[in-house]
């Protein structure tokens, strides 16, 4: 029993928490921005996959890691634009379009990857982001290892959560996004173009999602393989609900979630053969369902979420 609790005392656990949380933070923030504007983006799983592939491919071909991230963001934005055009001006079902984008982006990423990298024993690797030690702070006992020796994208993700929270609440752009997600007709009556705002939000959000995927290949691991996203995208969708559509809570949710994930990884070593490893792997998904259940009737949903906006229709 002490062994199980001892895990919490290791800095390694907390460092892993931040590392595991990073793709979830990007993905959840991305889905959150789309949904605040009123659009559910179920393309997230596919977009994260494609971001992972493109980021990796860019670096594999000699680009530097930041270029890889930029390429991923751009690719994500492109898929976001496709999703937005289909669901906003054309008003197609957000559910089905999102699934289609996931299928399309995933299969396209595997196709392109297979074109470039023929099948072999071990997949080729790249040199990933190294931990960026913050001067002075990273020398602190325990906290230094746990928090201040992360890779650069992790710091970016955390910063982004606060920036997006501030932007949504305090800027005119943020207010425009929010009002479009609550009542697009009201927004239109006040001179805001709901179609443009929704498209922009989905494009931006999708870029963030892709960054989450790219983190997997450029920092967490160092190679790309099919099905590496493993449902993280869906977990992010659940986390948006858990976070009540608030960015600061999304950060918290992702960290909480990553804590469970990091813990179970270490716990499975301690517990060993007694419990099959699959049980531990199931926990993230079951937790996500539990999160949805907990927030089911309580969360304040953006009122126009999933409602297509048609001009001139009241």
């Amino acid at each position: 029993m002490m062994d199980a609790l001892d895990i919490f005392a290791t800095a390694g656990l907390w460092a892993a928490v931040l590392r595991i949380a990073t793709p979830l933070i990007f993905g959840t923030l991305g889905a959150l921005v789309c949904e605040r504007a009123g659009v559910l983006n179920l393309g997230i799983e596919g977009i994260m996959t494609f971001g992972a592939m493109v980021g990796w491919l860019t670096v594999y071909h000699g680009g530097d890691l930041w270029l890889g991230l930029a390429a991923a963001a751009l690719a994500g934005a492109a898929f976001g634009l496709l999703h937005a055009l289909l669901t906003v001006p054309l008003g197609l079902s957000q559910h089905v379009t999102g699934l289609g984008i996931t299928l399309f982006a995933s299969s396209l990423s595997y196709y392109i990857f297979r074109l470039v990298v023929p099948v072999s024993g071990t997949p080729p690797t790249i040199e990933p982001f190294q931990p960026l030690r913050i001067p002075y702070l990273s020398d602190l006992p325990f906290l230094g290892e746990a928090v201040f020796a992360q890779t650069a994208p992790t710091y970016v993700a955390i910063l982004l959560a606060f920036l997006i929270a501030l932007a949504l609440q305090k800027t005119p752009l943020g207010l425009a996004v929010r009002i479009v997600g609550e009542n697009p007709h009201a927004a239109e009556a006040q001179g805001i173009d709901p179609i443009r705002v929704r498209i922009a939000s989905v494009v931006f959000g999708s870029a963030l999602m892709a960054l989450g995927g790219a983190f997997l290949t450029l920092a967490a691991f160092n190679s790309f393989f099919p099905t590496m996203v493993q449902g993280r995208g869906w977990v992010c969708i659940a986390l948006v609900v858990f976070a009540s559509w608030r960015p600061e809570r999304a950060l918290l949710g992702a960290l909480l979630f990553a804590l469970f994930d990091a813990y179970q990884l270490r716990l499975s070593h301690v517990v060993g053969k007694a419990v099959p490893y699959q049980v531990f792997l199931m926990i993230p998904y079951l937790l996500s369902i539990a999160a949805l259940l907990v927030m089911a009737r309580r969360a304040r949903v953006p009122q126009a979420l999933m409602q297509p906006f048609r001009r001139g229709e009241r």
Partner: protein
Amino acid sequence: MSGRALELNGITKRFGALVANDDVTLTLGQGELLALLGENGAGKTTLMNILFGHYTADSGSVVAFGRTLPPGKPRAAIEAGIGMVHQHFALAANLSVIENVIAGTERLGALALNKRAARVKLAALSERFGLTVDPDARVGDLSVGERQRVEILKSLYRDARVLILDEPTAVLTHQEAERLYRTLRGMAEQGLSIIFISHKLHEVLAAADRVVVLRGGKVVAERKAGDTNREELAELMVGRRVARPHRDAQTPGAVALKADRVSVMSGGASLLADVSFEVRAGETLGVIGVSGNGQSTLGRLVSGLVSPSSGSLDLFGHPVAQFSPRGFVEMGVGRIPEDRNADGAIGEMTIWENAVLERIGEKRFSAGGLVRRGPARAFAAEIIRRFDVRGGGPDTATRLLSGGNMQKLILGRNLIAAPKILVAAQPTRGLDEGAVAAVHAEILAARRAGTAVLLISEDLDEVVALADRVQAIVKGRLSPPITVSDADPRRLGLMMAGAWDEAA
């Protein structure tokens, strides 16, 4: 040119085969209160939507303060000083008052919202025009009257010089409406030019300087408010002296529907409180009230959709144990829901499917789990014939029917079974005069045939014409009943405002 706030020149707008506005020309002077009068479907809302830029006219132009407006752009209208207060408030319930007001007023690229300056301006406007509201309140928590104030403030905040109000008193109580007229008068005196759309004659005469009457998309008359009266306006609005049917005196029979101290709670909120009424065979009980006072719940209660938390509902003397829509239909209750599109019919299904869905369990329509199409289509064909439903046959998609015809279908599928009780909630909402007359005739025919009719309506004229007795519903409670011969406008107003002791 001076003194003219607005000019609409030759506005024409078509929706498919329907000509919503036909070469409409009108002007609005500065500081003037103009009423746009017309019945449902006359084209008033379409015209105002064109003015504000929600729609684009097929031809014609809008000139505001001497400048022609680019069509289809609300932003251009706002910048020219036109503000619109929509009938269904264009507000975001989850945002605060101040956020709703300032959204769209600042450059999207700006780094921060200037809420402090906004608060000062909002307070000044509230003071000047007497529209008090808490700027940090969540709009969803406000009362209807307060929300309308926010709607108006939105336009004033944008320095509107012309204000358009679409049926502003539709959701207000009598007192709130009076207060609004005074506010509008005050604004006009301060230089604002105001157009309001209405179909209520007394309101138009009380609040406006001038009246423009629209009928069938055309301007048919213009009068100064002081130079005309209700009869003339009614005739201009409707065109011909349409005699709406009136009830004859009749002796009612046994009590068919009775509610005894019924309360309905939902999630801690009281929707109906201690409600009692009874309806006899061959009589019509009218329940009047401004929307949002519990009518929907009352309608759902007597339609079998919701059961009481306390108290009992009796059908033909027996208390109802199980509340279910089909159970009620089986017991002979006909139900006309208040929203025909949301509750009354499934647009994508055919007429015959919508005709039999609520009675699909009957032997004639289904046997052994299979639908008996032949009898179902015949049933629908009979309804179409008897109730003059136009627009298609039994296999036509119901969404292709006009509002009036869909309502006739809904009425027909109930009345053809000679129900002993008829519950009609807002049965003529959104219908043109012809359809209204048809619906009223059917309701009266049912009453003549001995049906007990419960009529829930916001339309005072309708209730006074059709009902024998009247009760008012206010905040989930029912007033004591009065006979319709005692129901003068003053009394009805008091009842609807909740002043039941004064009304007695």
